């Protein structure tokens, strides 16, 4: 089961800097970062190594099955972010044709 970022996240991208498979978004080098409310983990690419958990200064990252009840919906929020990011990329490619 993948790891999930929850609402205390302050978007300081410490997790992203340490993730070995680069599955956390948005990257501070992208414009999307400037409007981000938080960062998100791609559940399809996370390899469950837990490196990000120790890097997070506000303890916002949980293994999916251990999410506190008030934040269980964040599993879906993280997944959804990437579904929508893919859609956005698809739209950009279409319009740039």
């Amino acid at each position, binding site marked *: 089961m993948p790891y999930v970022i929850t609402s205390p996240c302050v*978007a300081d*991208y410490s997790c992203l800097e340490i993730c070995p498979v680069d599955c956390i978004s948005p990257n501070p080098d992208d414009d999307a970062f400037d409007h981000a409310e938080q960062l998100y983990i791609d559940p399809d690419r996370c390899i469950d190594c837990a490196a990000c958990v120790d890097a997070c200064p506000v303890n916002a990252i949980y293994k999916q099955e251990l999410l506190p009840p008030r934040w269980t919906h964040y599993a879906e929020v993280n997944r959804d972010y990437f579904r929508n990011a893919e859609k956005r990329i698809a739209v950009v490619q279409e319009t740039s044709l």
Partner: protein
Amino acid sequence: MTTQKRPALRVAVVGAGPAGLYAVGQLLDQVDVDVDVDVLERLPTPHGLVRAGVAPDHPLKKRVIDNMFEFYLDHPRVRFFGNVELGDRVVPADLALWYDAVIYAVGASDDRKLGIPGEDLVGSYAAREFVAWYNGHPDFSDRQFDLSSERAVIVGTGNVALDVARILTCDLEVLRQTEIADYALDTLSRSKIKEVLILARRSHMQGAFNNPELEELGESSTVAVELRNATLTPEQQCLEQQLDWIDRRKVATLKKLQQRQLENPEKRIVFQFLTSPERILGDERVAGVSLQSNRLVGDSPDTLAIEGTGETTEVATGLVFRSIGYRGNALADLPFYDSTGTIPNALGRVLQHNEILPGVYVTGWIKRGPSGVIGSNKKCARETTSCLLEDLAAGRLKGDVLSPVAVEAELRQRCKALVTQSDWHRIDSAERLAGTAQSRPRVKFTDRASLLLAAGVPE
């Protein structure tokens, strides 16, 4: 062959909030150059708005202090000098002589005004003042807020507006477990407020709050949420589907909040969309607000605009908080853009008459305006420190500085009660100790005299 290492670079960071402290962390990370940093802060305490802005019922976010910022301040190459206000006995021209480079990270200490009649009546305040007050900021701890009105009105829909609405309606038992200032707990325990009315100029699809803050309103079992003017005309119905993911999530949450059935709601938060305050009513004290209705025009989320309908109503209240944004103040003779409340800069290099001022940098809210979350300041500081290091490599920093000992002597001579990092540690330990006895994270000292006493620094 031996290569001679450059003597340590001497940098001053002015302002110990997130932006300044992220800059410190990035300078410490350099491997090619040793950097000594002095952090100068006008308060006796570091951490800026994480201590005095972030809501007391959000203790998790404040962990960034212990897990990140304190780590930087405790570093042997870093010195903290609190109770030093730049522009007072120490001015930017002094720092320019003392250091290779200076980074200004003084945040935004003012706010945007509504610009409507009645704004200065007793009972009309900035959310900024109320926030600083309940967080025990020493410049605001002697304020009085009269919460005897049944309704409070907040103008604006940002996260700060939601923080204020939440604190005004929060269960006291919850607040008693936080680091909220004791006098604020006392005032809140006598509050008569039953309704917090949030006025949004724009539509329910354009709320300025973030999703987590909005969702949090659903965690209370005693505070109901009501929406007004959140229905669309049949032609506009499709707009909600066209919103981007973040805004769609907000609209869905608003609807969920409204549909909740609470058994015995004690209080309520009302979002009234498409409504602008036109005048604050009252003779000496606030008695009400005159409101003007707006309508939504435009056929796609990107072109949505509002226009006044000319229709006005009145609502009774004794308390109005404007929450339409913080704003930076000019600092001594540094350049300043009045229109944006920021110091003019190019990627963090301060500009005067469009020319770069060598060795002078800026980061955080005073650089880019009051937006983003705590981590936004890390990216912002990264841009600034990269410029500084580039300038160093290109030989654009002067390299003629005062020794650390001489700087401290100058500071001690000019500022009477200097608070160092170990003095701040004494304040911090005393606050935590007092907190342990009450099962709270800390009990804050809220005026300068008691902060300095706890620091062991004679006034």
